[in-house]
């Protein structure tokens, strides 16, 4: 290590900690590489673990320099967030609880703290206390960042899966030239209603559909929020020049709608998908004839 400047007594504790992290980067990284947090993730080589630890030390130094010891959103953390996420994900795959991950990060504190204390052996007691407190706070923030990153990774996974589920669950079917239908099955929440709306409106454009049928036979309940989304879909389709028909309102749902005092007055409704199709065909001017002798001319 090139001439180590003695642990100073100038600058704020944060500056001191920042300078310390930079000065002792290598020693801290080497010690952390042996802690379970790094050792068990980077199993290929110890060098890899040490390199990862160096990155984290650098990030902490940057956060300390910026005097943002408490801030989990500090810019310094952004560069190591991905790495921390990988480490957190590895731990959850290994079946670690949040508390265990937290304890592992906590395990990084003593080695760093001991180094800091030995660096400050000549400093006044008050100074030592301030600096160790600052480092402790910083390590606490790191712990929060790790946990937060791990949690939001999990959340991201759930969101991705939810989105996939939404897309799978919203098929748009072309029933006739100019008529599309979306049979909705399962509970409608706000996010899904949004996807339904966007999917249906896109289909209207693609299929040049003048009629769009929303069939809610498979929807168990309709609350006021869902009803509102249906109304919005109807209104948006109308602005685009298409008419929306809601079909398959079961008696229980009709009752709910009445109880909720919702006004579906401007929405065309039909009892079944077949009725809705018949309505749309009629409006398009397509006649329906019986499957009798002239069935061959059916179109």
């Amino acid at each position, binding site marked *: 290590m090139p001439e180590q400047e003695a642990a100073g007594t100038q600058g704020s504790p944060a500056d001191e900690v920042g300078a310390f992290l930079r000065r002792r980067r290598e020693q801290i990284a080497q010690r952390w590489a042996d802690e379970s947090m790094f050792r068990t993730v980077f199993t290929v080589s110890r060098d890899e673990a040490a390199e990862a630890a160096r990155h984290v030390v650098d990030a902490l130094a940057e956060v300390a320099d910026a005097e943002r010891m408490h801030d989990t*959103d500090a810019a310094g953390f952004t560069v190591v*967030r991905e790495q921390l996420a990988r480490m957190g994900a590895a731990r959850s795959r290994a079946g670690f609880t949040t508390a265990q991950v937290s304890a592992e990060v906590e395990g990084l504190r003593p080695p760093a703290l001991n180094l800091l204390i030995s660096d400050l052996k000549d400093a006044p007691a008050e100074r030592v206390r301030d600096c160790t407190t600052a480092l402790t706070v910083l390590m606490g923030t790191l712990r929060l960042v790790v946990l937060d*990153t791990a949690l*939001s990774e999990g959340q991201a996974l759930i969101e991705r899966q939810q989105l996939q589920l939404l897309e799978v669950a919203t098929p748009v079917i072309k029933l006739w030239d100019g008529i599309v239908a979306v049979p909705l099955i399962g509970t409608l929440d706000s*996010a899904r209603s949004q996807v339904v709306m*966007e999917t249906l409106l896109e289909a209207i454009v693609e299929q040049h559909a003048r009629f769009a049928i929303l069939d809610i036979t498979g929807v168990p309940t309709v609350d006021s929020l869902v009803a509102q989304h249906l109304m919005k879909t109807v209104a948006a389709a109308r602005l685009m020049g298409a008419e929306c028909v809601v079909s398959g309102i079961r008696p229980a749902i009709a009752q709910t709608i009445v109880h909720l005092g919702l006004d579906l007055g401007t929405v065309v409704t039909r009892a079944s998908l077949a009725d809705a199709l018949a309505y749309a065909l009629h409006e398009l001017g397509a006649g329906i004839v019986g499957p009798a002798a002239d069935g061959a001319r059916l179109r």
Partner: protein
Amino acid sequence: MPTSAGVEACLPIGSDLDLVWVRQHVRQAAARLGFGLVEQTKLVTAASELARNTLVHGGGGRMDSAQVTRGRAVGLRLAFSDDGPGIADLELALKDGYTSGGGLGMGLGGARRLVHEFSLESTVGVGTTVTVVSWASAPPRLREEF
């Protein structure tokens, strides 16, 4: 040219020409941050409403745009400020259909429904600042007040 500088920008709002700049900047910034088409359109429309408010009611002002992050979520923050007369009754101003400027009265209340976060500060005689934030993906759970 402010629109090529990226997401961070301060655009003056002094004429209806500036409204076009505001819309184009917000469109490009939102696209750069990965907003979906519908969210882009909502945010640009909200910006248009708010910029027009700044122009018509505030006598002109500026829009500051900045990228924001919360956890892994990326968003766009737009602040519209003017040194105009201010708004005496905030609740009334946010109500649909209320207008003092001859519009449809959808400006403030409508813009609020198009964004994820909305805050309005106004002091009579000093000016008004409306700050909105929209997130590129689903809005993150609020950890603390923004």
